[in-house]
């Protein structure tokens, strides 16, 4: 009897130790590899570089430099505009497609949804590569145009500028925007549309007054996906932006490579992070309001 109780007690402690261990792991890993790096990274933005060494001493110089030097704020501003533009393009293109998909049913819906989802799983770098191989100076489009005699010299305004970056970002991120829009549209109960028609609304009125407001939250999520990913990207601008495609992401990246000023790069990233957090919070607020009523 006594031994049985002892065994039970031992099992109990065993289980408790196991539990504590698992809980420690559940917290430990994300803490160590997400939170600690993030804190170190924020901390780094308050250090500075002397010669090629990072001096671990507190300074606000990096932030002062961002606000005082004339180059950074304009670049930050038009990077925002660029990402906003890319987000707008994706919404304009993705919303109609999502609406069409949501209006379908059965096999066609499934097949067509797949057509628009598959690019989501296709390599990002490959898409940039493919776009560049079409638009580039020595690219497919130029060579074809020269080939059929429309032009003698390659057209250069197609690539290596900010418009090319915006369009490429929009193309790459289009499926990201489409997916949340499609999901919210698809969740709108059919009965609501029926009810709207039943009450005398036309197709357009139903869209304006029922479908659009109910899909606003998903549209916002999709657009902010694209916006945030566009803001921080440095590979796309480098690949299709060329010398003229300087974006905030590239400036940050160059601080860690070419310029070798990590603390300043970190400061720039912290500014980006704060801005992104602000945008996401704002979007989240609207999203919450959208879903609280449903």
């Amino acid at each position, binding site marked *: 009897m006594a031994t049985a109780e002892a065994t039970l007690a031992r099992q109990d402690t065993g289980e408790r130790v196991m539990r504590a261990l698992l809980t420690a792991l559940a917290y430990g890993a994300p803490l160590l*590899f997400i939170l600690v790096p993030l804190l170190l990274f924020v901390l780094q933005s308050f250090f500075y570089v002397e010669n090629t060494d990072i001096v671990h001493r507190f300074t606000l110089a990096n932030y002062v430099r961002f606000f005082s030097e004339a180059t950074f704020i304009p670049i930050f501003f038009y990077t925002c505009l660029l990402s906003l533009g890319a987000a707008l393009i994706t919404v304009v293109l993705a919303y109609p497609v999502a609406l069409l998909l949501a209006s379908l049913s059965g096999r066609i819906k499934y097949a067509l949804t797949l057509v628009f989802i598959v690019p989501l799983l296709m390599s990002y770098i490959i898409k940039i590569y493919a776009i560049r191989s079409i638009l580039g100076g020595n690219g497919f489009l130029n060579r074809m145009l020269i080939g059929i005699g429309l032009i003698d010299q390659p057209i250069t305004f197609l690539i290596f500028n900010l418009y090319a970056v915006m369009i490429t970002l929009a193309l790459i991120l289009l499926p990201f925007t489409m997916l949340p829009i499609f999901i919210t549209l698809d969740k709108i109960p059919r009965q609501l549309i029926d009810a709207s028609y039943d009450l005398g609304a036309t197709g357009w009125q139903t869209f304006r007054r029922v479908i659009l407001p109910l899909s606003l939250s998903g549209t916002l999520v999709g657009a902010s996906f694209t916006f945030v990913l566009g803001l921080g990207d440095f590979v796309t601008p480098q690949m299709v932006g060329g010398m003229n495609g300087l974006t905030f992401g590239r400036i940050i990246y160059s601080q860690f490579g070419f310029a070798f000023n990590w603390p300043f790069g970190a400061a720039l990233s912290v500014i980006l992070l704060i801005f992104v957090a602000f945008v996401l919070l704002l979007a989240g607020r609207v999203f919450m309001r959208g879903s609280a009523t449903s």
Partner: protein
Amino acid sequence: MRLSGPAITALSAIAVFVVLLLYGPLAVAIFFSFFRLERNAVAWDSFSFDAYSTLFHNDAILDSLLTTLVVGLSAVALSLVFGTLIAFHYRNSRSRLRHVLQFVVFLPFLMPPIITGLSLLIFFRETNVQRSLLTVVIGHTVFVLAIVYQIVLTRLRALKPSLIDASLDLGASRWQTFRLVIMPNLTSAFVSAAILAFALSFDETLITLLVTGTKNTLPMWLWSSMRLGFKPDINALVTLILFFSTVLAFVAMRLFRPASRT
């Protein structure tokens, strides 16, 4: 949702345009893996698999492909273990800290990848960890963890608590309940999470670029060789990757579908 005839026509036109935008560039790449441009015109008689044979003799590509697979599988394994662990903790614990934990897990997914990459870069430098394949694996794991966690948690939530009560009521221990009742119900969630995590890892570029050592993953190799110009064997590689990712997408969709039935 029903749409009127003209509305469907207009939307279909836009949809066709979008399909052209999404697939056009890829189609061009695929096309030029089989054909060549000669004197600024397509040489229609140049059809060959030369690009593919060049590709299979390019050790650098094959090596980076292998590296990518190793990194992907490691990241999948790690993120499955930790994602599941954290999902269970979130489901079972009543501690307020679990919301904080969830937020931290979501961070790398919410932030621009450059920030995740940079913070890891700084972290490894401050802790004197050499950049290597291991740091890449950690970077990828951190990035896909949120997806795995979310998928597992969603399935855990769909599990009725009464199922667990029933198992305990029938005399099973907690461990037996976990093994015999909970795990079998999570299998399909694990599979979908693994596929999605692998696809994300396979494609990951921005974080990798910041934490990679000397060994290249495929996107790294593509990135560095693309700066030199376009070669048919890259087109061949692109074609193969597109083929396999399409297959993977189909498999994933098939798996996601029955999930909605449960």
